[in-house]
């Protein structure tokens, strides 16, 4: 199987990169200021300079460091690299998505570069540590499973979405396109116009996009070899 990876794992926005550069510079500045201020303070010679260095290094800069760091982290948490960092749990999905021969929905979107950045996040937008409150809980639930090394986290058991996948994220990108509304034998327009009923039990649209366009990812059982993509240079 061809495992050459064309989509780099690290696909964070340049905005996020800028944030992480600034946060890194601030963090280094804080380290330098605090450590040298500390040393100077001990020599008891230039205590005024030491005080200023410590004041800057202990109050103002760390606060900016925290703000930029939080911004950068939240942005980075959207990247494939981040999802992939929980290797055993998320690897099958990443590997499949990056596999150019795969025909799953995620792989099609990725290999054709339909979603140039943060594809996992775009399709799971209401997922994420800093998403909406409910998504946040899910994020922590994943972290919890992962920390406890549950079977799903270890990649031994099939992961199931907690709730049926709603069409929301798909429509976010597609509902505006004329070609989309006019294709799909009228079903697309009906879905976009909310004309289709919801399932009484699950609340999911009876006509999920996946009915005709699935599967989004392969099932665990279908993955014969574990595919470990190399980390691409980003």
């Amino acid at each position, binding site marked *: 199987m061809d495992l050459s990876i064309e989509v780099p794992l690290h696909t964070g926005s340049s905005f996020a990169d800028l944030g*992480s550069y600034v946060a890194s510079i*601030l963090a280094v500045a804080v380290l330098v200021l605090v450590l040298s201020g500390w040393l100077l303070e001990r020599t008891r010679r230039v205590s005024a300079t030491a005080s200023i260095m410590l004041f800057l290094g202990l109050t103002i800069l760390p*606060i900016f*460091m*925290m703000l930029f760091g*939080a911004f950068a*982290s939240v942005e980075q948490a959207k990247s494939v690299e*981040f999802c992939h960092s*929980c290797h055993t749990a998320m690897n099958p999905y990443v590997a499949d998505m990056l596999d150019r021969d795969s025909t799953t929905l995620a792989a099609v979107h990725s290999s054709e570069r339909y979603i140039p950045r943060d594809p996992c996040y775009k399709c799971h937008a209401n997922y994420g540590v800093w998403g909406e409150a409910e998504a946040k809980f899910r994020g922590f639930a994943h972290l919890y499973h992962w920390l406890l090394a549950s079977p799903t986290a270890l990649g031994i058991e099939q992961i199931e979405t907690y709730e049926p996948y709603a069409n929301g994220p798909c429509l976010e990108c597609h509902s505006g396109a004329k070609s989309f509304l006019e294709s799909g034998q009228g079903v697309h327009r009906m879905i976009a116009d909310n004309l289709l009923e919801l399932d009484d039990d699950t609340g999911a649209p009876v006509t999920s996009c996946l009915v005709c366009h699935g599967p989004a990812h392969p099932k665990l059982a279908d993955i014969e070899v574990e595919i470990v993509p190399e980390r691409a240079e980003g």
Partner: protein
Amino acid sequence: MNKPDLIRLPGPRLRGRVLLLSKLLILLAAVLTLVSVNLCTALTLSLFLIVGQAAVIAGAGLALFVAATDFLRTRGTSEVHFNAGETVFRQGDVGDLVYVIVSGEVEAIREDPDGEDKVLATMGEGEYFGEMALLSDAPRTATVRARTDLDAIAMARADFTTLYAYLPNLRVNVESVMTERKAQNRERLGSKSSFGMLLAGATAAALMASAAHAAGDAAAGESLYKKHGCAQCHGMEGKGDGYLLPMLKETPTMRDWSDPEALDGLTDEFMIEITEKGGEGVGKSEIMLKYGKKLSRDEIVDIVAYIRSLQ
């Protein structure tokens, strides 16, 4: 006497510990930030978001607390406590505080890098130290250490000089004790004397507010004159140029007592009476206050003798 309301600031040991904690927290946060934004893994991100952010908030908060107490310490008069054995300041430190001992004892030590440290003096209740601070940001000339648990009042230079400049009363008090102090200091520290020590006498005097006086007509009158603030209006040399006058709503005309003709026609009786009953009591300017309750007849007689001696 009521105990003045002073802010009690943390001593150096507590300050050092708080600052140390702050430094460690911030260093931890900086490392976590570096790792988190560069590695982009769930573990580092969670550590940064949970531990790192909390560390920044706590660390910066503690540092601000230290900065605020440092600021208060150099801006005002505050109460400080040192445990026995703690160093109040060290030789070579830059200092701008004068300390007056409320209770406890300290020793001043001259640190000699090549030789033995030498105890210069021990000081106790009511005594002061750190006077060099009043000169400028000059380095401390000796290390001062608490021999016992120590409560002291730390007074900032700015505070002291303001008080000193605006309260001639205090200044006068202080100056009268100064000579005494100066001699004592000279004895204690060999022949060295300094402006700082002179002013330090002032601090002590101001806080102890006690001045001993020998008997003697004009001489006793002089210190009473200065102690009771006559100089605020009549001036330090009785020239009628006290600092209070320009601040009054209407500036009274004052006699210059150093002018030989100034008191012509004024009897001692009148001078005693006006001091006792005030200007109002004798049909003169009510700005001249009445001192009948504060001063005895004998004391007023002494003051008048002093006033007469100014000519």
